[in-house]
């Protein structure tokens, strides 16, 4: 596939945006203004960037507990996203959801969820809806290597296959579920091959290479829009930090971290160099984009910090929608 320069630039921009956003979250966390726990997306940026760049605005994504990156890449308002993480009333969920439920419906996010693998059935339903309503929208559903061992995995893959749903299954295989290495919990070399059992075309890509993720997704989207059914893409990647707030990830062997956390494997570096090499970007332009994003993120942090907390009584709101 040959990609145009605009796309390369977009891939760089989205990858970087997620990176800068998450670095800011990490800082805010250090400032102790983020309540609760956090699952940072640092290291996996290329996956969200690659997938979402292949989608249009009305396409949907289904997120996970590690959802900041998905939401930001899909075009979330960063003010509302950061405010949500800080539990503010200006947050996209009015402070009711926080990190694990960070969601912006209006840019096509079906939801982030705290229950591992619970997004898969929801993605099936959204894709069925896209199909039944006769739209050409597709759904991309993110989930982790760990999630692929939950019962919803087989149930949902199967349903997507028998109904030929416009669905793209994105496994973010970051080699671990909390402290558990996937190789302890999965007998096969890849998770992708499980899709064979459901006759779902599948592919393994370098999840730190936004272009590779993008290209695989484009193919999958094409199939989905043509009514040819689901595809599964396994993106092999790695977390830069621990699983959650206080995890130092000491259980990861040094050789492994050395490889995965090297400059060479860095998602931002990879797409940046590719974009520059292929003339989609100059160094200066790359810096400019970075500066702009950094400023936006800075502003969003300011906005979030300055926003008010919700009033305690708002606890009682939003349980039910009003009957018309």
């Amino acid at each position, binding site marked *: 596939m040959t990609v145009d320069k605009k796309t390369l630039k977009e891939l760089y921009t989205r990858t970087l945006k997620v990176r800068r956003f998450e670095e800011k979250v990490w800082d805010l966390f250090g400032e102790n203004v983020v309540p609760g726990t956090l699952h940072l997306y640092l290291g996996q940026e290329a996956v969200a960037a690659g997938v979402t760049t292949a989608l249009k605005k009305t396409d949907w994504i289904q997120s996970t507990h590690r959802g900041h990156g998905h939401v930001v890449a899909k075009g979330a308002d960063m003010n509302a996203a950061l405010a949500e993480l800080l539990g503010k009333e200006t947050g996209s*969920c009015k402070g009711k959801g926080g990190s694990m439920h960070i969601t912006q419906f209006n840019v096509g996010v*079906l*939801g982030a969820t705290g*229950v591992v693998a619970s997004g*898969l059935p929801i993605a099936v*339903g959204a894709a069925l809806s896209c199909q039944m309503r006769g739209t050409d929208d597709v759904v991309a559903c993110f989930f982790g290597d760990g999630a692929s061992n939950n019962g*919803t995995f087989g149930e949902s893959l199967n349903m997507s296959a028998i109904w030929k749903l416009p669905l793209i299954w994105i496994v973010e295989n970051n080699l671990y579920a909390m402290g558990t290495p996937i190789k302890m919990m999965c007998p096969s070399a890849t998770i992708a091959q499980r899709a064979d059992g459901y006759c779902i075309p599948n592919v393994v890509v370098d999840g730190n290479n936004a272009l590779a993720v993008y290209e695989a997704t484009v193919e999958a989207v094409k199939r989905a829009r043509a009514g040819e059914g689901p595809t599964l893409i396994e993106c092999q990647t790695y977390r830069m930090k621990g699983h959650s707030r206080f995890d130092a990830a000491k259980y990861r062997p040094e050789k492994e971290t050395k490889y995965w956390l090297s400059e060479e494997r860095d998602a931002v570096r990879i797409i940046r160099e590719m974009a520059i090499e292929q003339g989609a970007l100059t160094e200066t332009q790359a810096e400019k984009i970075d500066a702009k994003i950094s400023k936006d993120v800075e502003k969003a942090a300011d906005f979030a910090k300055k926003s008010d907390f919700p009033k305690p009584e708002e606890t009682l709101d*939003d*349980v039910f929608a009003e009957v018309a």
Partner: protein
Amino acid sequence: MPEKTYRDALKDGLREEMIRDERVFIMGEDVGLNWGGAFKVTKGLADEFGEARVRDTPISENTIAGTAVGAAITGMIPVAEIMFGDLITLAMDQVCNQAAKMRYMFGGQTSVPLVLRTVFGGGKNIASHHSQSLESWFMHTPGLKIAVPAFAYDVKGLIKTAIRDPNPVLFLEHKLVYDKKEDVPDEDYTVPFGQAKVRREGEDVTVWGTFFMLHKALEVADELAKDGISVEVIDPRTLAPLDKKTLIESVKKTGRLVLVTEETKTGATTAEIAATVQEEAFDWLDAPIKRVNAPDTPVPFSPPLEGYFIPDNKRIAQAIREIV
């Protein structure tokens, strides 16, 4: 007005809503062409509306419920079915963590207009895995509405209200009620949520109950009338929202309350009702509130055992006599 079975009244309601609104569709195991639902509620609908809108699914309860969620938040109105209430155990995450909480945890960004039908109750000698009454679990789940129709007129009006409600509605049926007949209008009508119905007026004691027990309570009321005991019988029609007002007014009149359901006693819906009434009408109570429930055992198979398990007229009458 034609006399109809509960089953047919329910089917009429579903049919009319499917004609009225093309977003409405039915899904579940064997709801379609070859079977028409384990209790034949949807029989014939697949012929009329096609297999896409009356959709058979694999045996994947959690994904059935989750598919309904995903479809609901993206523009469809699914009426999903779990074949037996006992099997909702497999779908608890999607029902209780996703459907019920989604609007809330996303701060009102979306709503989840789905109906989940299932059937509870014993009396058919089909043992522990096909006879339970688990409604209290859901009454304890904020974010769900719960309909408990026990009569043919109500079931048609309530299914319409359920389908038109923008929130997730658990629509509970009972195996022994499907064949009950009543006059049911052919026209469109709805029965509102949160309005109990006084099924029989009385002065000496109030009986509140659900499903088949309500039918028994009415028989008992007839019997006791011969002995000069005047029984008021209340049918809540929905458990959430719960019409406390009608009940409390009745108790203020009679001063006595007997609660009758087929659930195992500890933690049943009758516990909640008793707790609420003693909280809100303490000074009006002339006797302790009595609960008539099944014993705290699984549902046994053999007829004499199941006969002992399910409350009968004798036990209901006895509980009433103990306090009047």
